[in-house]
């Protein structure tokens, strides 16, 4: 297992720059998740690390060894593809042993390693099947198995669970996480599913438009997002934003409503245009506070999700209780102290 580091990595396809200078260090045995909206360059970054694409500029090193100009086979990485990319003409056994065979390992050596990996992944009964005879979840496991048989310096995953149904996805995400702990391996895991990232990763890298926005532990990012984009990207339902200006201890929203927020807005510049953010679960019912019109009530069993309108803007509140409110009613909610976020309207940066 090994460290991985990327320095000032840029990649252009033709005249469009897709990666605009990415730097990242991944520690030994770390699980790093790359998240970001579709098209932001996650796969491209992963493919550059794997050697499937050549960097326009910048440096990549794996285990301290510069690999920027090396072919994939010389980088000692394994990759699990979104569509699994199993060899359709080979059995599960041959799929998993393919790289070892190319490396010229002995038949017995290959068998031992394949059987061992199959054991871990519960694939032993399927070893003589062809990929076409497997379910999606099984194919996913074979793809993972093919990677772990290699015992590579670095594992790369490109949205490996996105083709599975929701239930299987949850199960496989636990399995991959368990595998990470068991193998004590270094993994870079691309996903556009922020829940996957939150639950699996030691650290999360949030990307947007070819740049890294923030790197940090899941809860760091959740609690102290560096900008409005990260704040809005992590968390489901997403953070609520109210746009407005600061006026003393109050926020004046676009439609002129004055929301007084004692204790939240002290010390900021008067008149500054801001985005005020609050996560849905950080709103609580109160006798007084922000007055909100209830628009939709969605009971989910333990919780109740309310779609509210505050100062003319839609706000979601997630309340850990059952409620007897009806659409149209007027209620009051109060932000939990210390749980609000304030971002500069112009730059999106945290204030």
């Amino acid at each position: 297992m090994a460290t991985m580091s990327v320095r000032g990595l840029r990649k252009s396809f033709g005249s469009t720059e897709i990666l605009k200078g990415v730097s990242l260090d991944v520690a030994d045995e770390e699980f790093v998740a790359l998240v970001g909206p579709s098209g932001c360059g996650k796969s491209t970054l992963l493919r550059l690390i794997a050697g499937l694409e050549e960097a326009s500029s910048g440096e990549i090193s794996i285990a301290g060894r510069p690999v920027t100009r090396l072919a994939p086979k010389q980088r000692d990485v394994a990759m699990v593809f979104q569509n699994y990319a199993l060899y359709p003409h080979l059995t599960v056994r041959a799929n998993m042993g393919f790289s070892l065979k190319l490396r010229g390992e002995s038949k017995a050596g290959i068998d031992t390693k394949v059987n061992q990996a199959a054991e871990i992944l519960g694939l032993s009964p399927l070893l003589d099947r062809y990929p076409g005879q497997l379910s999606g979840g099984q194919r996913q496991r074979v793809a993972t198995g093919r990677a772990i048989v290699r015992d590579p310096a670095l594992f790369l995953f490109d949205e490996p669970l996105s083709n599975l149904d929701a239930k299987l996805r949850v199960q496989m995400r636990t399995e991959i996480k368990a595998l990470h702990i068991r193998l004590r391996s270094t993994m870079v895991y691309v996903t556009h599913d922020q829940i996957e990232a939150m639950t699996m990763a030691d650290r999360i890298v949030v990307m947007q438009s070819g740049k890294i926005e923030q790197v940090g532990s899941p809860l760091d990012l959740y609690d102290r997002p560096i900008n409005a984009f990260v704040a809005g990207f992590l968390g489901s339902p997403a953070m609520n934003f109210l746009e407005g200006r600061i006026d003393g201890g109050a926020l004046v929203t676009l439609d002129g409503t004055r929301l007084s927020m004692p204790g939240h807005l002290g010390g900021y510049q008067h008149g500054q245009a801001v985005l005020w953010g609050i996560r849905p679960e950080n709103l609580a019912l109160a006798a007084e506070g922000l007055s909100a019109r209830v628009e939709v009530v969605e009971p989910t069993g333990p919780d109740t999700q309310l779609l509210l309108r505050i100062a003319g803007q839609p706000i979601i509140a997630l309340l850990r209780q059952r409620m007897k409110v009806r659409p149209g009613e007027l209620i009051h909610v109060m932000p939990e102290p210390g749980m609000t976020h304030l971002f500069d309207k112009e730059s999106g940066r945290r204030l």
Partner: protein
Amino acid sequence: MLSSRLTPFLFLAPALIGLVVFRLAPIGIAVAGSMTGTSLMGDLSFVGLENFAYLFTDAEFWSSLQVTLLFNLIINPLQLAVAFALALLVFQQGRAIWFYRLLLVLPMAVSTGLSAVLFGLFLDGNLGPFNGFLEWIGIGAQAFHRNQDQALGTLIGIATWKGAGYWMLFLLAGLYSIPSSVQEAALIDGATPWQRFRLVTLPLMRKPMAFVLVADTAINFLFFAPVYILTSGGPSGSTSVLMYQAYLSAFTFSDLGRSLAISTILLMIILIIVALELRLLRSPEDHAA
């Protein structure tokens, strides 16, 4: 659906009548006709398998069968190999590759008959440039289709000139249907270009290659126009393929029974090939993901 039972058949009738009368019925006519003989007076009579019995004692038939088999044994693997090589060459994107592709498929727009005429002129000692070229580089002029030893090879060359680009298209489609991520997985697994070709590309191309081989064989068993136009089966019967024999029997020797007997044999071969082809298309991608 909301339709009377008859409607579909009214829509189908013209085409189906055409196919039944002009494609299906001739198969029956061939079989029936191969069992008739024509007397000198021109009346037909049922002769059973006599035409076949006669064929099998006929040296000319055996020699023609031999020529046909030799022709097919060479041309089909050759066209497959050339077409596959072309497909590999134009598969990856690159500067002006579209233009090369276009040039390579141009001959498919030239009919087999015109290809024969074109090469008849091109290879002619007085009219065409090729023998001059051979003289110039020191090989010396050749007789090509007018030489017993070269005629079959010349026809194979002409047919390959015309056919390779056409079959290339099917193999190219096959190459494109291999997911690029599978090739990339092999790259990451450490395969060299040659290993990727032998262990990934080649096995995954089995189906399109089999299709090309089978469909090409069906066509080449019926090879006719260049023989008719350039060699008339000669020199010394060296290019007298079965289809040409069938034609000669009917139109030069007025022996319709023999002609239809040969046609029947060819038809049986073709129907077996078509059955193979159908199986190929039907079989679900055996192991595909």
